[in-house]
């Protein structure tokens, strides 16, 4: 008796859920009708009314992709949620009993239904595989969909002209270096319109995360790691950059604003800033894809002059080796 859990148990009074014998209402047809009508309406409303306003907007290709994917997922998710809710609401209202003392043993007897179980698994598996295929295409075709791809990106943009920008995260501020403009480093993030941009995200200390919200870019900043994320700007406007990986005291205050401007405005800004910062650019270390502070004479980055707790141990270890 207990072994019949997965097999069709039509005998001894258990009725298969799919149909309804005479007199019994056709539950599934009712539920299906309600479900399909609500779902269609909800999906259409969402797609046309809400969807275009879903963040992160359409400022870049990555942002637009994220918006499209979110909307597609939402359109699939809505019927799932509505389906379960419709069924539950129907079940709870149709088969509810007022609180009867003694709780009689009189419910349905079916311990399983082969058709329902198979259909359930088939449908969920199909949806899941479909989502996987969709997600993979949407990840690979737009060159990583704005996510950090590590130092050696395998999905790269097709554009021939790419503006590289190094994002340097440190506790607790982002600075930006423009290697193709003489390697000046600034607190401002200004981007040209209609340009493919490669953000090379790195960190000087702990793990940060460069989240350019309206650009649809997110890439972790790890020390001594070049994490590349691509996107193409489509619209001018301003955007927010936030740190998205807890990095200590000022994590919540580690944000700044950037701008996408026209190409000519960008050119003139970059040229002007390059000249303004020239005195300090000379003092910066030579450009490298991972920002190595030892190159500017900081002695491995341990302050001051190599006497922090690691350095002391090093001395100790070296002495031991000599003995």
């Amino acid at each position, binding site marked *: 008796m207990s072994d019949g859990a997965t097999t069709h148990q039509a005998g001894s009074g258990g009725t298969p859920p799919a149909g309804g014998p005479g007199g019994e209402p056709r539950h599934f047809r009712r539920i299906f009708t309600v479900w399909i009508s609500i779902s269609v309406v909800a999906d259409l409303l969402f797609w046309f009314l809400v969807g275009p306003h879903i963040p992160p907007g359409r400022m870049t290709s990555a942002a637009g992709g994220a918006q499209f994917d979110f909307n597609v997922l939402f359109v699939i998710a809505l019927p799932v949620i509505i389906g379960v809710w419709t069924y539950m609401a129907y079940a709870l209202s149709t088969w509810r009993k007022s609180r009867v003392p003694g709780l009689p043993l009189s419910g349905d007897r079916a311990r399983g239904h082969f058709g329902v179980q198979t259909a359930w698994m088939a449908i969920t598996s199909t949806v899941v595989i479909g989502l996987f295929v969709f997600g993979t295409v949407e990840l690979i075709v737009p060159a990583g969909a704005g996510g950090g791809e590590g130092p050696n990106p395998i999905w790269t943009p097709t554009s021939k002209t790419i503006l590289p920008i190094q994002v340097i995260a440190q506790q607790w501020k982002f600075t930006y270096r423009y290697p193709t403009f003489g390697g000046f480093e600034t607190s401002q993030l200004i981007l040209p319109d209609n340009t493919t941009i490669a953000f090379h995200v790195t960190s000087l200390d702990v793990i940060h995360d460069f989240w350019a919200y309206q650009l649809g870019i997110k890439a972790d900043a790890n020390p*001594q790691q070049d994490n590349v994320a691509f996107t193409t700007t489509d619209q001018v406007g301003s955007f927010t950059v936030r740190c998205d990986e807890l990095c200590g005291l000022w994590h919540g205050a580690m944000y700044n604003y950037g701008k996408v401007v026209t190409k000519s405005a960008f050119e003139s800004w970059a040229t002007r800033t390059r000249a303004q910062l020239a005195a300090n650019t000379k003092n910066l270390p030579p450009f490298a894809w991972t920002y190595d502070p030892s190159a500017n004479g900081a002695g491995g980055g341990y302050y001051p002059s190599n006497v922090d707790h*690691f350095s002391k141990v*090093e001395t100790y*270890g070296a002495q031991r*080796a000599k003995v």
Partner: protein
Amino acid sequence: MSATTHNNGETSGPVLTETPEELAYELRAAEGSIWTGTRLAIGIGVFAFASLAFAYFYLRSNNAFNLWRPRGITAPTSFGAAVMAFTLAAAALAVLAGRRLRGGQTTDWQVAGWAAVLSGLIALALQIWEQTQLPFYPGSSGYASCYTGWAVMNMVLILGGIYWSETLLARFMRLRRAFTEEGGAAGSPLPAARLFRANVEGAASFWIFVAVTEVFFWLLFYMI
């Protein structure tokens, strides 16, 4: 040994008299639990040491700043070989002791068992001593870090094996008289004796796991 009757104190509940069938049933369950528990303990150990192995290979393949293993530094190889040898000896002796016990040779079991404990203690002592003789400091490289982690975990591992074997031997000495009344530790049908044998088998299996772990990480840290 008949059904155990417990005497309640002032606040008495129902007095439970277990039937012989129930005692036998619970005894089988206890034996099975020791068997399963041993395997679970090994499983826990596998996941723990797999974490260390993951750290080893991850840092090795990363080789950040060429600081995985600069200049091919190695922890003292003589110590490493000695620690491994004594641990393997302890494992082999513990397994041997278990077999001798099953064969009814209780003297052999005790001799081999205590030798296993001694061997394990020597391995432990050497592992601790090795820490004072390192040609590198713990944070000098990825290798040095992993080695330090391994040293700590290895101490815990060997200590676990020693504890298991030692408690069995100590218990055996206390229970010797009781066991010998009915066929000795190897054959006594007393519940205590049966669980004792199950425990000895468990300890032997655990020692085999210790030996495999030891060889694996010895290869990682001293050979490649």
